[in-house]
């Protein structure tokens, strides 16, 4: 952590970056995102096991970009998000610098190639709890799953925190906000809620880095991240390509192979 503070200080003092996006102390033991713009505030930066939010979502926000070159304190999922954003031409190499702590030592990753290299060494696995939930759900019958999601999504208030917290949900015009045609009713209602979460998962399939930040952001505790993790999982299984692995690869749903294998089309 000392290293991180010093590095951030040095970067800001030299003018190499204009803002450091990192974690600060939140309420109690929680951590919250902070944007450090002056060298004297780098002492506010914190990095420990409680830093779990994927901060990459701020990299595409106009307000943050307007500050100038960004350095970001990155956990593994943040690095993956950076690569996916780069692959989708949402991020320029010269505008971002990742600071990541691996095996107790601070690394400064200035190029996408360096990030790719680092990401390749980190095993990506979803948490045991999430895997167990997905296994439990897939073992259920369709009507049980329907009941499970109906009960969960019934609590959804359509605050769109899952959308806002997601690094990959950067569209300025979202399907959700479209009112001509209105695909999804604005009100928080059982039918629209089901569709909203389906759209979110479909739009993230092949791009999701499975960080789980959407689920953590949900104020009513719906495990919405299971949907995106599942959708991403099906893409990996069918097409052998995963989100956030490369800064160059087209994502799986915008390409195809003539010999894609399915079993259900008659």
């Amino acid at each position, binding site marked *: 952590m000392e290293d991180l503070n010093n590095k951030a200080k040095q970067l800001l003092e030299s003018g190499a970056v204009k803002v450091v996006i990192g974690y600060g102390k939140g309420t109690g033991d929680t951590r919250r995102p902070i944007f450090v713009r002056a060298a004297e505030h780098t002492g506010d930066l914190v990095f420990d096991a409680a830093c779990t939010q994927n901060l990459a979502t701020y990299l595409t926000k106009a307000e943050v970009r307007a500050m100038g070159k960004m350095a970001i304190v990155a956990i593994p999922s943040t690095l993956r998000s950076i690569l996916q954003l780069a692959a989708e031409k949402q991020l320029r190499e010269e505008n971002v610098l990742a600071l990541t702590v691996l095996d107790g030592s601070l690394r400064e990753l200035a190029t996408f190639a360096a990030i790719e290299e680092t990401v390749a060494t980190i095993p990506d696995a979803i948490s045991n709890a999430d895997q167990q939930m997905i296994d439990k*759900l897939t073992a259920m019958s369709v009507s049980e799953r329907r009941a499970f999601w109906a009960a969960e999504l019934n609590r959804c208030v359509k605050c769109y925190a899952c959308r806002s917290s997601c690094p990959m949900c950067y569209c300025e015009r979202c399907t959700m906000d479209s009112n001509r045609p209105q695909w*999804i009713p604005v009100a928080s*209602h059982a*039918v629209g809620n089901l569709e909203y979460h389906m759209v979110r998962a*479909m739009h993230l399939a092949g791009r999701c880095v499975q960080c789980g930040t959407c689920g953590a952001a949900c104020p009513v505790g719906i495990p919405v991240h299971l*949907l995106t993790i599942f959708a991403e999982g099906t893409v990996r299984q069918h097409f052998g390509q995963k989100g956030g692995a490369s800064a160059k690869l087209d994502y799986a749903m915008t390409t195809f192979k*003539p010999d894609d294998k*399915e079993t259900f*089309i*008659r």
Partner: protein
Amino acid sequence: MADAFEPKMTAFVCNWCTYAGADLTGTSRIKYQSNVRVIRLPCTGRIDFMMVMKAFSRGSDGVIISGCHPNDCHYTSGNYHARRRWMVFRDLMDFMGIDLRRVTFSWVSAAEGAKWAELVNEATNTVRALGPYKEIQQLTAVGID
């Protein structure tokens, strides 16, 4: 099911193959069940998964999605893109508890009038046996539309 439930089927078809195929079914005087409402779209690549969800929330009991066989796409690759999307969408529908027996995917070419009739009959019979799609319709009944 004795009280004659007739399912509402929505078919999303592409302009170049399945729509022409369905037309051939008619010109060949092949009879098939009239439960289906055909919606013609330029290409299967245009069939947004939201259309399927909209069909269900607006009262469809079953959906048929059909287009050109691989390699036959008028726009060369629309059906390949669609196929990828369906593969993921179908798994996701299943994961979210949508009954997959109500959604039929197919390739029907402009020469396969008989296949279209068979497909519609089969899908309609399946859905008729399942009954109305209460799980979704209950939701719509209480709220906004």
